[in-house]
Structures are given as C-alpha cells and as structure tokens.
C-alpha cells in the first residue's frame, strides 16, 4: 500500500531526525507502515521491533497528528445541565500511546520525560485565548480522561519485551475508531534515566477502497454527493414499494 505521501514523510522524518549522530544507537521498525481502513475495519495490531547496542531501556511513543480540540464543561444553568464553559487547545494529538520496557518512572527522569513528551501527563497542550494555568490544567486533565475512555489515549503503557540483551519487540493495537493521518512512532533509548538515542518512523493510517472513494467524494464534491444520496434514497423508496403495489 505504498503511497506518495509515505515517501514524502520518510524523507521529512530522516531529514529532521532530532537525535545527534554520535548518540548511542537503536534501530527499530514496524511490521507495517500503512494501516488501511476498509469495510469491516475493527482495529489493527502493529508489531514494533528493533535492536539496541547493548543493555538499555526502550520507550516508544506513538502519536497521531496534532489538531485543535475544544473541551466543554457541563454546568447547571436554570436547573438544566448544559455546556457551560470551554477551553480550546491548539495542539492535541488525535492518538497517543506509550510502550515501555519497564514502568516509566523507573527508566526515565522527569525532565527527560517532559522534554520528549513521554507520558500523557507530559503532553503540553497550549490553550487558546486568556486562560489561567490552573483552569487550563483542569481542562487538559479532563481532555486526557475523555480521550482515554474513547480509546485513543492509552490508559497505561504497553509492555516492550526484550529477547536477550539487545532485541526488543512489542505489539500495540489501533482501535476501530483510530483517527486517520500520519502518525509518528518515536523510539527512545534510555540509560540511567536519560534519553541517549532514538529513532522516528512514520505510520500512515488511511482509508482505502470504496470507503475512501466515498469519503473523498463527500469531501470534494459535496453538492453532487448530496444529490446522489437523495436520488439513491428516492430510488430505494420507489423500488421497495413495487412488490406491494397490488396488495
């Protein structure tokens, strides 16, 4: 399922590799770089595997593309529960999952986790407009909580297992409601709670087949799509009444 955006992203990622060349090395890859959502898609499993240059810990962060997200807080107004107040964040990943060889607090220091945005609590959402930091925190926590329940933020880390000292692998699951877009899989190599190396690889989640065609058509030719939808409904209604005509 090679697509031109894939090549583009690989080039971009290699060109912007944030890790210096002299760092300790880790090599990792995915069993698949493209997840195709088609009719009957109920989720997909992806294997992440790789090797280190010696005993170390590994953390992998899988992030969906960032987008703007509004969180509403319900409140009671005149006896009715309604959306009372909201905060909009500018950079919220549509999907976020962490895999680690051991519990995060045992293998990464807090400054490193904050720097590399490892763990949902270290995702720095930027509120839009004038919002007090406390208020932003409350809404950001709520956002994380809602996304966890929706299955797009992982509630806890996925286990990465080592085979011997150097080979590691893990399997993570993308749920049926996986958002589409270009994901980044960041693999961090850790020693003494510091990030000493890493690698970034893309993962593309896209619609394929008839569904993709329908979706693209609905986006790009909205009026024609609407007209076809209406005509189709009229035809279906007429056809269905035929067998009952003489009854």
């Amino acid at each position, binding site marked *: 399922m090679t697509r031109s955006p894939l090549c583009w992203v690989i080039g971009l990622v290699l060109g912007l590799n944030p890790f210096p060349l002299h760092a300790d090395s880790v090599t990792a890859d995915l069993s698949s770089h493209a997840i195709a959502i088609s009719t009957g898609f109920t989720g997909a499993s992806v294997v992440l595997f790789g090797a280190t240059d010696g005993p170390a810990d590994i953390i992998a962060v899988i992030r969906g593309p960032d987008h703007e997200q509004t969180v509403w807080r319900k409140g009671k107004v005149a006896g009715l529960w309604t959306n009372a107040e909201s905060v909009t964040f500018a950079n919220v990943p549509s999907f976020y999952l962490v895999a680690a060889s051991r519990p995060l607090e045992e293998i990464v220091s807090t400054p490193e986790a904050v720097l590399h945005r490892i763990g949902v609590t270290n995702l720095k959402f930027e509120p839009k407009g004038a919002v007090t930091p406390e208020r932003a925190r409350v809404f950001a926590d709520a956002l994380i909580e809602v996304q966890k329940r929706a299955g797009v933020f992982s509630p806890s880390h996925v286990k990465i297992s080592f085979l011997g000292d150097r080979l590691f692998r893990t399997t993570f699951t993308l749920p049926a409601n996986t958002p589409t877009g270009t994901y980044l899989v960041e693999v961090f190599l850790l020693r003494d709670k510091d990030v000493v190396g890493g690698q970034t690889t893309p993962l593309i989640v896209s619609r394929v087949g008839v569904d993709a065609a329908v979706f693209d058509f609905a986006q790009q030719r909205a009026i024609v799509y609407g007209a076809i*939808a209406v005509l189709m409904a009229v035809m279906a209604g007429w056809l269905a009444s035929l067998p009952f005509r003489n009854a």
Partner: protein
Amino acid sequence: MCRHRPVPLGGDFDDSAQGQNFPIMDVYLPIAEVSLDIFVLLGLGAAVGFLSGVFGVGGGFLLTPLLILIGVPAPVAVASSANQLVGASVSGVLAHWRRGNVDFKMGFILLVGGLAGSFLGVWLFTIFARLGQIELVISLCYVVLLGTLGFLMGIESVRAMLRQRKPGAARRKLHRHTWLHGLPLKTRFRKSQLYISALLPVGLGFLVGVLSAIMGIGGGFIMVPAMIYMLGMPTSMVPGTSLLQIIFVAANVTMLQAYTNRTVDAVLALVLLVGGVIGAQFGTRFGMRLRGEQLRFLLALLVLAVAAQLAHDLTIRPKTLFVIPLDYRG
C-alpha cells in the same frame, strides 16, 4: 460543526453484540468512521420504518437518538437520518397515494413554507453550534414540543374513545369557526374537503421547516397533530400528505448537511433504508386497521415517552462533566 464522541456507549454496544448468538457482520461507515453490525442497523431501520408507516411521521425523532446510542456521531446521525427519511417517505407516500390518501395541493402549499423555514433553521443551527449550545437547544425543543403535543393528543384521543363507548352522546361539531378562518387567501382543498386560508398551511410548513432543520428531523410528529387539530384535515388524509412534504424537507436537509457539514453517510442511510422501506409498507397496512383515535393515542404515548426521557436527561447530573466535540471537517 462538532460531534460528541459517544464514549461509553459505543464500547458497551460492541461487547453486548459479540455476546449474542445472531451472526455478526460489521459494516464500516465511511463518513461516520465507525464499524457497526449490519443486522442491528437493518433492524433499527425496519422498526422505525414500521412506525413511520403507521403514524405518517418520519420517525427521525426516534431514529436519530437510537443511532447516537449505538455509536454514530451525533451530526452524522442527524444528517444520515434525514437522508434515510427521503427514501422511507417516498415509499410511504406511494403506499398512501394508491389508496387515494394524499392531498397534493395541501402538500405543496405546506412545502412552500417548509423550504423557507428550513433555511432560517439552518442559520439558527449554525449560530447555536458556534455557541456550543446546539445540544441544549435540540433537547429543549424536543421536550417542550413533544411534551405539549403528546399531552394534548393523549387527552383528545381518550375523550374520543370514551365518546364512542357512550352511544347517543352528542357528536362533535363538524366545523368550528375561529379567528383562523378569517384570514385572507381562502383556498379550496377538495381532497381534504376544506375551504381555508392558504396562509395557514404556509405558516405551519414554515414553523415545521425551522424546527426540523434545528432538530434534524422531518417534522412529521409536529405536522400530523397540527394538520388534524389546526387545519381540521380528515385523519385518513394526514399521513400521506405529511409524508409528501417530509420527502422534500428531508431532501433539502440532506443537501444542506452534505454541503455545509459533510456529515451525510450514504452507506448508513442505504442500510437503514433497506430495513426502513419494508417496515414502512407493513406499517402502512397495520395503520389502516386501527381507528383514528387509537392511532392518535398510541402516537401520544410514544411522543410522551421520548419527551420524558429527554427531560430526565437534562435535569440529572451527567455521568461525565467534560465533553469533547470534534470539528468534523478538522
């Protein structure tokens, strides 16, 4: 526009469906971006189609909440229901038309008001959505309208049934004159045996058009009682004529939703239709066996039940205080 991710319900539904014995065949809905069991969707379509055939209401006020319940994002549920209503109504109108129970003149005059009203309604919808209050507005509209109509219809139909039990009781006056009959532009509706001002159906259509765009429904449940009590149409003419105007209002809503919000899921609508159009045919037959007041009593109960549920949801503390509407065009 924004949608609310159906967080707890979607997951629960999947689990319960897996545990049952009927065959599971998931179908991926390209606009809703979820996979749902095709048999659940077909059954839902058939059940709502049956009701639409019996009562001459589109059934959108039941279909939309049920779709949201099984995991379809709210804006997609609203828009795709409108799409399926087009087909279900065509099927229903044809069934009634063969029995001569459609007043085309009345239907098209209602429609003139209806189309104008739906444009105003879509404009209001956009404003409330921007303020984050569209869900509250929708719920309140449902509670107030369904509550009032259900209550009035229930009382009237019980009275009518009691009157029939007592032979010799005074018959209702055939025609009562009110200020409504003093309006200009008097028009004769031969099918409905009425001679009333054309402003009445235009105004009624306009009101229903506004409400149906805001609430994402065909508006049959408002239209049917209003045609019986406000216009004084014969009950037999009401379902077919109501469905006739629902076809066009629903088609208009489908087009507007497809253009402004890109939320019409044609695959979902088609699956619902396959179940729905067949259900509507059986519903129409079933409805003809019931007497008018029985029909109205049943509809009143249904309408009151939905209103009570929605009122309950508005006043109890929600399970989750925080919600995330997604920008659909993100």
